[in-house]
């Protein structure tokens, strides 16, 4: 169990992978079962409506075995891989924030007599299976936003507290992935209990499991995994070396914050706004977008009012509403807000970028707006105006 929240990318951590274990494919099911036996609700990848999403797992048979997600700007298709890979896909429209920071939670009940009840009675225990490097980084970002500022969000903190994380190192990045350039992947860096590397081919199929916490070790011992040999560990390491060579996208973060601060009136934002539909898809699929709104709901008699918190998006016109109108009424200003928040102001607010390089916003944008391209465009426009 990760009880040390201070792990973060870029920072030294005292925990390292201490022991490597070997899991035959059948042991993945045992892993799920063992976690369930320990009282964890286990969540992991399943296929629904033609996409890989995260949902509760009862057994490994629910995993999208043998599938690949073919992604492009504004494109997502599942196809058969032709092998039996358990984790041969990357990330889909869901992210783990759905479980740690649910889309809709009831915060308060207020009665007309003035009785106020604050709801925070969740006391479950979750385990996430197949968390990618970018997603670990995203959870770390949310930790900073929701737990390490002057105010700590109780809903997130409760769910985060007992979280058990089984990470998966990505053997093949997707077409929209750029985690390598963001320093968040393709290999899990920190903030997990167990990290799996899938080794597949030449008649072999196994997982090398690195345990980073004592809880991770305990679970692996419990399911009877044997220690991995040096050869097996080195085969896993070759898989990851190869993965690094397969990236197609990158985002150059060097000095980017300053470039963006100097480009607030850039025509690049106006150009993007001509394509942007302000649909808010990018913010909903983003694993770090944390903005919420509250809704007030009353019963028909007006005797009980409930306050619900739900995910919001800076692409909604009402997001910036103050008396008389919205601060950001044009699409240009709303795209600029999102873009500058992810890549610039977030750094000043939380000491880390709000983008982890997962590529979801590129895939799920109906018109395929690509954050890596727009960042490069901002840079290019700056260079032109500087000369």
């Amino acid at each position, binding site marked *: 169990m990760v009880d040390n929240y201070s792990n973060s990318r870029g920072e030294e951590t005292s925990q390292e992978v201490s022991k490597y274990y070997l899991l035959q494919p059948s042991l993945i099911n045992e892993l799920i079962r063992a976690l369930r036996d320990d009282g964890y609700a286990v969540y992991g990848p399943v296929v629904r409506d033609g996409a890989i999403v995260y949902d509760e797992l009862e057994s490994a048979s629910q995993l999208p075995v043998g599938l690949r997600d073919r992604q492009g700007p504004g494109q997502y298709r599942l196809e058969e891989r032709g092998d039996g890979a358990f984790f041969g896909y990357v990330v889909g429209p869901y992210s783990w924030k759905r479980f740690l920071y649910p889309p809709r939670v009831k915060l308060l009940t207020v009665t007309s007599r003035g009785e106020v009840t604050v709801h925070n009675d969740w006391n479950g225990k979750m385990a996430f299976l197949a968390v990618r490097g970018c997603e670990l980084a995203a959870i770390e970002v949310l930790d900073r936003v929701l737990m390490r500022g002057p105010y700590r969000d109780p809903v997130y903190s409760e769910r985060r507290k007992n979280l058990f994380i089984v990470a998966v190192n990505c053997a093949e990045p997707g077409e929209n992935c750029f985690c390598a350039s963001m320093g968040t992947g393709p290999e899990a860096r920190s903030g997990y209990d167990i990290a799996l590397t899938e080794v597949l081919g030449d008649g072999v199929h196994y997982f090398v499991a690195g345990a980073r916490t004592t809880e991770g070790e305990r679970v692996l011992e419990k399911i009877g995994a044997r220690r991995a040999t040096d050869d097996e560990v080195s085969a896993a390491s070759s898989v990851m070396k190869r993965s690094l060579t397969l990236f197609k996208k990158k985002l150059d973060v060097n000095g980017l914050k300053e470039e963006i601060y100097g480009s607030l009136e850039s025509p690049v934002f106006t150009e993007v706004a001509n394509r942007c539909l302000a649909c808010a898809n990018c913010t909903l699929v983003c694993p770090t977008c944390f903005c919420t709104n509250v809704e007030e709901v009353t019963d028909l008699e007006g005797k009980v009012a409930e306050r619900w918190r739900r995910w919001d998006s800076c692409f909604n016109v009402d997001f910036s509403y103050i*008396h008389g109108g919205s601060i950001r009424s044009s699409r240009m200003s709303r795209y600029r807000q999102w873009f500058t928040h992810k890549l610039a102001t977030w750094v000043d607010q939380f000491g880390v970028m709000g983008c982890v390089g997962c590529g979801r916003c590129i895939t799920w944008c109906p018109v395929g707006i690509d954050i890596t391209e727009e960042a490069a465009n901002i840079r290019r426009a700056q260079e032109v105006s500087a000369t």
Partner: protein
Amino acid sequence: MITAVSVPVVDALETYKINWLRVVKKTKETPDTYTLRLKPKEGEIPPFKPGQFCMLYAYGVGEVPISISGDLYNGKVVDHTVRAVGPVTKALASAGIDSVIGFRGPFGRGWPLEEAEGKDVIIVGGGIGLAPLRPAIQYILKNREKYGKFYLLYGARTPDDLLYKRELGLWRGRLDSQVLVTVDKGDEKWRGYIGVVTTLFRYLKLDPANTYSYVCGPEIMMKFTIQELKNQGLPDERIFISMERNMKCGVGLCGHCQLGPHFVCKDGPVFSFAEVSKFFGRREL
């Protein structure tokens, strides 16, 4: 990296709770603006600083951020001035004496009154922007010996739009302060200045090396006032403004009130101009 106010981590759950206030007095300031004097249904009003705001709650309708607009009786009651423009503010403005409204807060960073002790202070308000300044004015006038020269410039569109008219008269009568009031457009009874608030600067002789300024009003009014204060030689570090954004949670978690890297609700609403100059007055930022 913004160094937020260094306070221990607070469980935001505490800040989600609603407390109840009773309306003990209601003053009609302008045709659509009311000052509600509020007293806790039970217990005390939590300590607050001039310039902070509360989330006021109309049962079943919703919440709005409203600046604390007065503190005359040592925290036993608290004033909020509400302009009826949306569903929540209309519900609040229609609350009668003895009705009960909810509140959360106070939130945010107020005017730097302690920092300005021993110095001259100039306060410039525009329209309803006088509301968050009023507790600062009250504090300075009550602790007049702690400050050097004190100036108050206040502008509104018409005489009908002036807030706190009776109190303005009392302030104007003080011999230890210079209080000037102007309107854009007078009526037949108006005997004061005519023109935007920045035209009043010509009647002052500021000591820029020794003066703090607190400004609140519409952004366009603040923009020209800041320009005038800079012309007078005040550094950005001693020009303080109160920003308005869509505050929802009050504790920097909901994301609505961002202005560049700042969360207006927890890093502000009062900022020195030095902190926000890169982001202030930019269209739609």
